[in-house]
């Protein structure tokens, strides 16, 4: 157990931190003090400099200027080993685990070699019992859920008895139930006198867990507060610098005819770790947004591919757009049926990062926007289309037509959403519409989705963000292990109920739904 420190000297301090990448200052004179026995939130939009600061504290980056102190003494964190030696541990957002090794083997990878296998297992079970982090040391990692994988990362971190634990977006892959379990562990660590630096964009969690928050914007500290005294909206306003408006659903829009129908869609997977889709049925009517909740890796990517035509259904009738069977058609022909698609991965799937924005406009619109004639490109029309999207969706960029990869995540997502929404699709399928997008841009995107539904389009939104789904979706279904639960009106369900289904403990409601009953349930939630 680390000694509990009290008093004015912070456990760790960072003063005047500047980090330059070329001409760009990712951190610009940042001060941060972390005391023992507190959970300290680090808040900010994407690109505010949170990751940079975190990497400096963990010895992954060296600051251009500024110092890091430990109990008042200046320390040099040349690499993560040095940081670990000072008692700094880190739980990364993206797990660095070997899928084919067991839990114990993955933990042994980062432990001193002198520690024997039996001693390691004993330590693991001690930590496991103390904190309620139970894991079978002999299970291979690929068979574990995201929450269980995160437990490995946390145990790896705790085995080194850290005095400061840095957590980067720890709940982004967890169900609400799993997140609760994590919070209990974190509170326990805090009570032991350890310090925790908690990075999250989920403001409700921050308000619940953290006693102090430092807010970054544009690489600078713009405020500090006690999040328990703030509202989620006031925190968001501090992060983006302006008040974030709530999205307004169009009220009282009568639902149109069924536009997107999935009938008993089953799809085997080709990859080793892919998820097979099992007997999925769903209807989406014009004017409606149906949300698909679920933890990553439960078939979202497979469902998206089956809808977009990047994966073909076994039978044409399993996927129907506006009454036409399209299950055996490729993505271009499905686009010609008036459908548009926005995949989860921006760079490398929705967009080619090295190509210009106008080339990327061409990417998904070449067949449907009259951008080519007799095989020749109409570059003026393509550029005009790109500029139109850039203007309408307020895409911030450098230069008139830069490469897609040079845009920030939020701006690229705005461009890609705009590219599809401005095609005025009858059917729009979106996977993770606001993943990694700042609050302001996310609100803009959600409003655009609601407006599109208001114009009579059928929208299917796959998202891991329950807040987002409850904000925009009329009905919500849960994808778990390749099966889809019944879509229920958002007004008639709760986060807890959806959370249970996400964890696979729904019990009822996983049976396919008959189209007739869907229509009754489809009354708009708002």
């Amino acid at each position: 157990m680390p000694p509990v420190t009290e008093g004015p000297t912070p456990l760790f301090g960072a003063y005047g931190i500047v980090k330059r990448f070329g001409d760009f200052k990712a951190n610009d004179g940042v001060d941060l003090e972390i005391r023992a026995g507190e959970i300290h939130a680090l808040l900010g939009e994407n690109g505010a400099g949170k990751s940079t600061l975190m990497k400096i504290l963990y010895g992954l980056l060296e600051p251009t200027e500024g110092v890091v102190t430990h109990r008042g003494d200046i320390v040099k964190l040349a690499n993560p080993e040095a940081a670990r030696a000072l008692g700094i541990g880190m739980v990364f957002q993206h797990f660095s685990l070997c899928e084919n090794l067991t839990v114990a083997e993955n933990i042994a990878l980062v432990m001193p070699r002198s520690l024997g296998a039996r001693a390691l297992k004993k330590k693991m079970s001690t930590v496991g019992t103390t904190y309620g982090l139970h894991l079978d040391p002999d299970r291979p990692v690929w068979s574990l859920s995201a929450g269980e994988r995160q437990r490995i990362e946390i145990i790896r971190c705790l085995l080194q008895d850290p005095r400061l634990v840095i957590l980067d977006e720890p709940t982004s892959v967890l169900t609400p139930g799993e997140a609760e379990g994590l919070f209990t562990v974190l509170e326990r660590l805090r009570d032991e006198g350890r310090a925790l630096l908690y990075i999250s964009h989920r403001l409700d969690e921050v308000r619940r867990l953290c006693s102090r928050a430092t807010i970054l914007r544009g690489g600078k500290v713009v405020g500090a507060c006690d999040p328990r005294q703030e509202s989620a909206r006031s925190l968001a306003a501090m992060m983006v610098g302006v008040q974030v408006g709530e999205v307004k659903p169009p009220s009282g829009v009568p639902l149109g005819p069924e536009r997107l129908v999935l009938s008993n869609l089953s799809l085997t997977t080709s990859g080793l770790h892919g998820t097979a889709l099992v007997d999925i049925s769903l209807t989406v009517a014009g004017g409606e947004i149906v949300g698909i909740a679920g933890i990553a890796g439960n078939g979202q990517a497979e469902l998206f591919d089956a809808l977009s035509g990047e994966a073909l259904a076994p039978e044409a009738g399993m996927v129907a757009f506006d009454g036409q069977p399209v299950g055996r058609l490729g993505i271009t022909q499905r686009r010609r049926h008036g459908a548009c698609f926005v995949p989860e991965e921006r760079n490398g799937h929705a967009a080619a990062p090295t190509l210009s924005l106008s080339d990327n406009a061409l990417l998904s619109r070449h067949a449907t926007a009259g951008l080519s004639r007799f095989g020749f490109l109409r570059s003026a029309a393509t550029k005009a289309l790109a500029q139109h999207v850039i203007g309408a969706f307020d895409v911030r960029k450098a230069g008139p037509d830069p490469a897609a990869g040079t845009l920030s995540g939020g701006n690229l997502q705005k461009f890609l959403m705009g590219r599809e929404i401005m095609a005025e699709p009858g059917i729009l399928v979106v996977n993770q519409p606001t993943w990694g997008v700042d609050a302001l841009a996310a609100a803009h995107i959600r409003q655009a989705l609601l407006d599109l539904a208001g114009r009579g389009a059928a929208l299917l939104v796959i998202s891991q963000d329950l807040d987002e789904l409850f904000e925009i979706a009329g009905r919500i279904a849960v994808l778990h292990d390749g099966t889809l639960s019944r879509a229920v009106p958002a007004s008639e369900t709760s986060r807890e109920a959806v959370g249970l289904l996400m964890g696979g403990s729904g019990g009822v409601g996983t049976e396919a739904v008959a189209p007739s009953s869907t229509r009754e349930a489809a009354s708009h939630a708002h």
Partner: protein
Amino acid sequence: MRIDLSPRTNRSRLMDGFAPILAFVVAVAIGGVVVAVMGRSPATAFVTYFIAPLSEVWSLQEVALKAAPLALIAIGLAFCFRANVWNIGAEGQFVIGGLFGGWIAVATHGAGGSTFWVLPLMLAVGTLAGVAYALIPAILKVWLGVSEILTSLMLVYVAELLLDYMARGPLRDPAGYNFPQSVTFDDAARLPYLMEGDTLHAGVLIALTAVVVATIVLARTLFGFEVRVVGASPRAARFAGFSDVRLTLAVFAVSGGAAGLAGIAEVAGKIGQLQPSISPGYGFTAIIVAFLGRLSPVGILVAALVIALTTIGGEGAQIDLKLPLDLTRAFQGLLLALVLGADALSRYRVLFVPGTAT
């Protein structure tokens, strides 16, 4: 200390254009040192390599004649390489194009009547033979997942041995005193000379046309866009609705056709008959040319001229200065390495970061 490459935020277009020129200058400097170490005057060697071939009409024509097939093959390969498809067998497609196109010339040898169709037929058959031969590795790749690098390379030796057999066997000139070569083609089966009494033939025009056509196709057509997208991001290309199977077949066909056309143009132009060997390795050198030219048709034309110049100059140096031909090849390899290096340096800044690597 560790070394980082960080992308340049404000790349100047001037530097981008200047980088390969700088690389060339550095290559010449290194070459000069090597020549000096070998006991020859670097200045004389420079003149022999780079100035002498440009100073006489005949050697200028030789440079153009060597550059033409290199450029034509490399342009076809640029389509493959941009689409991340690795056709290493252009040499074989070149040979097959020459063989089957030349077969028409042998078969129509001495035929009476109107013969205006012979040359167009030869060019068409040579091109199509190249396409067909290139489709073998392409189909194996899309159908069975066989690495096109291995199959296309191995088919080079099959093609060379086939030509060798045909030139010594079935297509040998019966009145040729058992020399392993076919009859000399009729005039109707030869590419016309551009000027009377010169060696420069119409094959050069074919290469120039290919530069123009390929530039337009890559920049202005949906097919060119497909090639660029697949090369830049294969998953995004599938999202765009471009089939990688179709594209793999298409770019193999384009590069095979270009190599086959270059092959028959070489046979019907410079050589004028079928011999056991018709290529000094054009198909392999074209790979260097394609990358030296940064996979852009105009760049490839320049690169082909530079490589042709060093080759002709190298022959001169062999004769005048007794410098080995290997030195020329080493220089060409050095040039490629330096141009690729200069490209990387114009795109990235090198940062020396103190501290231990993590």
